[in-house]
């Protein structure tokens, strides 16, 4: 029995998905990342195996992705979330061509081909105004939790635009709207409209090719999806069964599975997924640029990512 885990260590949340040899999702886990990335990956992995009802030793292969991909100590391979999102999106909806992923600290637009290969991508500039953090900040000012944002904003009848391009300045704008008596739901919805506008602008920069899909935590926010669709003037596909937030982890797992199948077909060994000794979590240092340099490329079964991400033969010939 093959089990492949995809672990996505994002800036705000760590997500994990376990799939079987047919690519079916058999387990999942989500938790806040915090600032100890190696520990976050261990914790979300523990949550994943508990959720799937398997032992750690039952996991054949681990593919990591996200900003903290290098810090997953037990990974066999690593890949960026752009590649992972693209692959999962086309796996779930084969006609997906443009993906929008709104994360805690960044926002990505990815154009893909029918094989799930990345054709073009753009990430937001070094500003948080177009990211999930912007909405979270606005919500915090209004005394709302992240989960309340969507239902609360849905009550808005007259969204109040937030025009600033800077998340910090936008906060002052929110305060000034509140002071002049604008209802909080209109401010919240206004923030979503602003975020939606920036997101769609980013999508335009990769080229708006119909077959749109939204991934990331925002898939749980119905009001945000509505704001985006209005701006896009088209519908956005969202992964079923709450998988939207787990899309990156799913893509990593699927690419990991492909790698496992290739290793098996070639009769090559698969390195065992490591289990840390007791207390080892505590010894791991915080992630830093230096740590990144020391840990890459990953050493799972002796080859670099470049050789692990096997393109389909047709792609190589192209």
């Amino acid at each position, binding site marked *: 029995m093959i089990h492949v885990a995809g672990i996505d260590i994002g800036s705000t949340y760590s997500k994990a998905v376990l799939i079987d040899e047919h690519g079916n999702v058999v387990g999942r886990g989500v938790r806040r990342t915090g600032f100890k990335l190696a520990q976050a990956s261990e914790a979300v992995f523990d949550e994943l195996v508990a959720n799937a009802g398997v032992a750690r030793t039952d996991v054949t292969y681990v593919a990591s992705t996200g*900003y903290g991909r290098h810090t997953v100590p037990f990974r066999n391979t690593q*890949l*960026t*979330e*752009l*590649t992972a999102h693209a692959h999962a999106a086309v796996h779930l909806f084969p006609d997906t061509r443009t993906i929008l992923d709104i994360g805690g600290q*960044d926002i990505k637009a990815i154009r893909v081909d029918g094989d799930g*290969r*990345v*054709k*073009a*991508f*753009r*990430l937001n*500039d*070094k500003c948080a105004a177009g990211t999930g953090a912007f909405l979270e900040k606005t919500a915090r000012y209004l005394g709302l939790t992240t989960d309340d944002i969507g239902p609360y904003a849905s009550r808005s009848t007259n969204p109040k635009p937030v025009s600033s391009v800077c998340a910090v300045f936008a906060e002052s704008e929110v305060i000034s709207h509140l002071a002049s008596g604008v209802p909080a739901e209109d401010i919240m919805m206004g923030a979503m409209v602003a975020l939606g506008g920036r997101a769609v602008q980013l999508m335009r920069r990769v080229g708006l090719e119909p077959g749109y899909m939204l991934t990331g935590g925002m898939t749980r926010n119905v009001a945000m999806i509505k704001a985006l669709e209005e701006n896009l003037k088209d519908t956005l596909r969202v992964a079923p069964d709450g998988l939207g937030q787990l899309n990156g982890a799913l893509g990593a797992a699927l690419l990991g599975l492909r790698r496992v199948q290739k290793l098996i077909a070639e009769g090559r060994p698969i390195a065992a997924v490591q289990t840390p000794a007791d207390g080892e979590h505590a010894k791991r240092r915080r992630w830093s*640029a230096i740590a*990144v*340099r020391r840990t*890459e*490329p990953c050493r799972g079964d002796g080859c670099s*990512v*470049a050789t692990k*991400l096997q*393109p389909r033969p047709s*792609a*190589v*010939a*192209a």
Partner: protein
Amino acid sequence: MTTATLEHGPAGSAADAFDPRSEGQRLIKAWYADLEQANERRQPVANVFVMGNAIEILRAFDFKLVFPEINSLQTGVRKASEEYIRLSEDYGMSPDVCSYVKADVGLMLKENRHPAGNIPKASLAIASNMCGTFIKWAEIWERWLKTPTFVLDLPGQRAAGWQVRPGDAQHASDARWVEAQFTELIARCEAITGRKLDLDRLAEIEERVNRMVFHWNNVMRLNRACPAPYNAMLDGLTFIGIMNVYRGAEEGVEFMRRLDEHLQAKVARGEGRVADEHYRLIFSGTPCYVSMRRLVELFETWGGVFAYSDYLTFAAGGMDATDIVYDTSRPLESLAEVTALAAHRGLSNQFFAHERLAGQIRDYGADGVVFHGIKSCRFVSSGMADTREYLSRRLDVPTLYIESDLIDPRYWSDAQIKNRVDAFFEALHQRGGGPVGRKANEERRASA
């Protein structure tokens, strides 16, 4: 027209003993040490920019040359730039102003104390219209330090596909325009130094530039080999430093000659900068001197090497054109003719650059182009989006856009840049990337 001294010996063990990096560092150190003495020795000093600078005339008058852009980038290389930049921001300069200017303003606020040594006060500053910022920058020196400015107005690219042909009517009239300005400059230099221009001296300097440019062209061409013997954005930055600072000096000729030999030997041995070259790339834009080593490392981890960069052309004042050879029998006229050509060459790498970049992709067998945008350098960065669009949509060339700064470490975001670089290589790999580099590597292995 002189063609002398273009011969060079066979690549041999002397070439192997030459270490361009340490030799380059030694020369830069020596140059700063020499500058430190200039005011004390009452030598004339001139501030010049790397593009459009009339160095040959200044050298003929024995001016010591200060390159403020190089001073600024050296604060970055030496990890001291933030202190200088902050000083200028405290003075009131906006974060959006070119950080070279800000580091230089910081240097003035620190009374010319630079990490590499004290920078002498200049008695003349040559600016040019190659970048509008140069003129504003020179204006600050004039006001703060009373350094008189001389602005050269150099003709550049007039339209897309516009070619300047040596000797045609347009070039002749451009050269006359430049020569008239040089005549005025010479009068200024004569007034400062109390000496007449020695035309034989100018011809000697030009002769040395001819030799240097000959080797410089070879150096650029040698990186068309696969694997590339050097990284244009790491080793290349040392080379271009020498090309600028020692242009027309015997040490510069010798450095370039030995470098040329050294690289020829490397190419003959099939030795690349990257042990296993998978991807050949072109870097478009100005470097991030404060993190260049790290940036290059991010690419080399994937077997990616920068085979060429337009920076090596425009920041060397456009001297890498084969038709740039001084006719030393007519030193002044020829200087004007070549300056008009070089200015055009330097600027054409930035204006209407699409076709030229497409040609360079072919020449260097590049698998993709990396654009490095710098918000505060509009001269280089403004057109990037359009060029990028042209390359990716029209020519299907993979491109990557990253953003940081020349020397301001606050703009370097390691995780974000790494993510973009990794995703770029994953996409390159998925599309079967690196065809040129890989094919050549395979052929090399097969024949080994």
